[in-house]
């Protein structure tokens, strides 16, 4: 059973990529919707399996680490697999209706979409440093392809910028992998971690971790390495933006977090942990501030991603040399933040796309008066905003609560200020959109209601983000499952 679930997870996206490559857009859409169903079922199946039996290592091709590639199937990984299934299905469903099927180059949307998905699954489950690199590249290149698809010069510039940043990030990561392999002779994260628990830390190994995390931070667009993100996320088609902001940046963060949690205690140091946290805080403030100043709707949302990503990096200081309970709280908080941001941001981008479709302009001030038409998408946008502002009962709030607790308990009260100020700043940019929509202006008569199904999708995502806070205990409990270590090196 597990075999089939793993196969479904890793190979059906690849198979669907090939299938959709051979068809045109309209048929590719049907094929994709079928594939989405399979993926959702498989992801759910694996999640249930892990929720029932606990996590395990899975050696691909019958070869265990360190010789072969091992996958780490634990609660966190399957939670993200499921999250990906939800968000990517929503984006795929939305894209099928949203994207113009008559443009010949749009047929390439589906294969790229499926490659992206397979890369994401590979990253969530990966436990092999080099395999993670290949997975990252799979994600980056398909994401760049999606941004550039059929674009004009500005889209190409954005995608080039994105590509160069992603490549530099990958190289830094790969250099770290090279050093790690040179030092430990294995590529398995679990192998390195277990060796480090029994032996003294060898000299010169901090740089490898630093390089990897720096490269991944660049790919995650941590301030001040964030400049590539807003143009790329802002200019892509809305379903693509949603995928990028919701999932793609999370993939590189996920690897960084995994590395830090497994290797950070022996190889890291306090200064760098605090520094990463500081950069995250700067991202929160600076990203929100710039989001307030953007004139384009999707740029607002894109800069908001920069800010929200900043929170994620508070994981580093909050898990370094603190008590077990604080570390757990911080991990839970960050996990919730990842999930709720993924859901909320996907909802927001999709809703923004619908709004742009409705008013025929991408500017914020073009929204004047649209509130009168009671656009469903505006409502979804607002509900997603509640989560971004981390107001209750959203998942964002639950995340913030846990992070507040972790900061207070570990005595690092300065992060408390960041969390509170960040919430207020995000309220500033979210309500800026609402302010525009509530303005009663005489000329706002033009309004086009997009198809209902386009509007329903962001609403579902937004409601999930909102409701996540109420069930966060249940969601987090899957992560805390015991992990079967047998078979680990």
């Amino acid at each position, binding site marked *: 059973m597990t075999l089939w679930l793993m196969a479904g997870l890793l190979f059906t996206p690849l198979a669907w990529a090939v299938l959709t490559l051979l068809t045109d857009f309209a048929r590719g859409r049907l094929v994709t919707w079928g594939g989405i169903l399979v993926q959702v079922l498989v992801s759910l199946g694996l999640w249930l399996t892990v929720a029932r039996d606990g996590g395990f290592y899975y050696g691909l091709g019958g070869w265990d680490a360190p010789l072969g590639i091992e996958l780490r199937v634990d609660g966190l990984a399957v939670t993200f697999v499921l999250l990906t299934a939800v968000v990517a299905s929503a984006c795929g469903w939305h894209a099928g209706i949203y994207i113009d099927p008559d443009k010949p180059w749009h047929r390439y949307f589906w294969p790229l979409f499926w490659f992206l998905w397979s890369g994401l699954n590979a990253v969530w489950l990966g436990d092999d440093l080099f395999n993670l690199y290949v997975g990252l590249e799979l994600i980056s290149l398909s994401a760049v392809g999606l941004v550039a698809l059929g674009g004009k010069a500005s889209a190409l510039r954005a995608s080039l910028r994105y590509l160069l940043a992603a490549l530099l990030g990958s190289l830094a990561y790969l250099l770290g992998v090279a050093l790690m392999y040179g030092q430990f002779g294995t590529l398995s994260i679990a192998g390195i971690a277990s060796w480090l628990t029994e032996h003294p830390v060898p000299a010169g190994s901090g740089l490898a971790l630093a390089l990897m995390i720096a490269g991944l931070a660049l790919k995650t667009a941590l301030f001040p390495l964030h400049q590539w993100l807003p143009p790329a996320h802002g200019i892509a088609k809305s379903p693509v933006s949603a995928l990028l902001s919701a999932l793609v940046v999370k993939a590189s963060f996920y690897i960084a977090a995994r590395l830090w949690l497994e290797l950070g205690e022996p190889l890291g140091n306090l200064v760098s942990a605090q520094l990463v946290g500081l950069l995250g805080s700067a991202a929160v403030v600076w990203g929100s501030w710039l989001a307030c100043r953007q004139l384009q709707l999707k740029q607002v949302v894109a800069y908001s991603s920069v800010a929200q990503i900043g929170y994620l990096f508070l994981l580093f200081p909050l898990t370094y040399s603190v008590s077990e309970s604080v570390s757990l*709280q911080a991990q*839970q908080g960050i996990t919730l933040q990842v999930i709720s941001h993924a859901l909320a941001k996907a909802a927001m981008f999709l809703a923004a796309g619908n709004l742009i479709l409705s008013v025929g302009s991408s500017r914020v001030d073009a929204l004047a*008066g649209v*509130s*009168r038409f*009671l656009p469903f998408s505006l*409502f979804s946008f607002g509900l997603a905003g*509640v989560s971004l502002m981390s*107001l*209750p*009962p959203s998942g964002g*709030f*639950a995340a*913030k*609560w*846990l992070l*507040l*607790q972790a900061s*207070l*308990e570990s005595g690092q009260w300065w992060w*408390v200020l960041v969390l*509170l*100020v960040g*919430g*207020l700043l995000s*309220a500033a940019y979210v*309500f800026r959109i*609402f*302010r525009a929509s*509530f*303005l*009663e202006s005489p000329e706002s008569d033009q309004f086009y209601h997009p198809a209902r199904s386009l509007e329903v999708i962001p609403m579902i995502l937004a409601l999930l983000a909102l409701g996540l*806070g*109420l*069930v*966060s*205990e249940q969601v*987090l409990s899957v992560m805390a499952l015991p992990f079967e270590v047998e078979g680990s090196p």
Partner: protein
Amino acid sequence: MTLNAWLPVFALMTSLVAALVIFALPEKGYRLRTAVNLGAALVKLGLVVVMVWGVFRGVDYGVSFTMVPGVAFALKADALSMMFATLSAVLWLLTTVYAVGYLEDSPNRSRFFGFFSLCVASTMGIALAGNLFTFFLFYEMLTLSTYPLVVHRGTEKALKAGRTYLIYTLTGGAVLLLAIAWLHGVEGDLPFREGGHFIDADADIHLSLILIFILLVAGLGVKAAVFPLHGWLPQAMVAPAPVSALLHAVAVVKAGAFGIVRVVYNIYGIEASSLLGVLEPLAWLAAFTMLYGSVRALSQVALKRLLAFSTVSQVSYIILGVCLFGPVGAAGGLVHLLHQGIMKITLFFCAGNYAETLGIHRIDDMDGAGRRMPGTSLAFTIGAFGMIGVPPLAGFITKWTLGSGALAANMDWVIAVLVLSSLLNAAYFLPIVHRLWFREPNGSWPRERRWGRLETNAWLFWPPLLTAVMTVVVGVLASLPFSPLSWAELIVLREYSP
């Protein structure tokens, strides 16, 4: 789980479901929307009445589950929450009736009533919250759902007021969250409990507790419009009259005041608060706000702004009452939660009627309006007299009880403040009453009204009269069981002898 556990949830859901249904209804579905609105309000009132009876008999209503690791989402009905719940359920019904009339033929009604219902759902949640965490959850939801109501008119002025409102309340919310998170870090998850949790607190956490108390009051004080955090309230007056009525009489300011009551009684406990020495400064602040609001009200020219400053002053009565150590003063403060709600909603309904029917917004235009709209003006007069504290109206009961409580608590200066405040109340309300009845009309509205017809739309006419009658009734019958005063005494009894 039994039905009892679910009653608070149902009470919460009535308005939540109503909100969702209303959002889904088309703008033109006027009848259906009104029916949903009134139906939900009536159902909610019924549920609340059942729970009041149950709480009186000592039934335990409550439901709770772990929401975030370490914290529970808890709904619970105790005597205090029923007081607030009753207030909002009764006044929601009346305000809905009023709003249906007030917004006749205006645009965006679907949006308005949707958020209006959400707002009431939040208020209900605040009333029924079983711990600070849950309280905060609904407290923020209230902020969000009132924003669209404040900016409802969509003018630049309204949007500016909305922004001010948000800046104040969201910042207050952030401070409150900090305080709650800190408190949680110190003591863990604290359910609201009669007598509080900190009576035997270690001396080494006293400083943290005092700091947390200050933060809590600062966070809650924004909504309660305690000086110097009151700035949003007069600006928010651009909202339509039913919103002002609801915001000022029931939802927002009361949520803040109610929160402070909860913190003092059910988190810290009155004795522990007194022991920590935090009550006295709070009492001084409340007293100052009482006087400050009244003084500012004196110089207002717009009727609704005057009422807003009057609210600033009146809400602090509640806080002052809470700070008086001793059962009598406490009852006085608590009962004002209800009394002020009833009186102030009357005044706002009347102000709305003047604006809607005669186009009066400024005080100097009110000359002689009493002849044109006697019913409304009668209601206004009763409300104003109540505010001043004329016996036997509701305001008198409050002030009398507060005064006795102050004496019992050996805080004689409070009497002076009460007297001074009443004089100031009279100083700004009596001239208006005088204008209404004894000046020649100078407005441009038609002088004579046609006989056989109400002075204004029936939907607008009856709610203020009804609340005016209530103002009289709760004053006259204050000593009967289930009167607000008796109920407040029941709460106090449970608090002081847990």
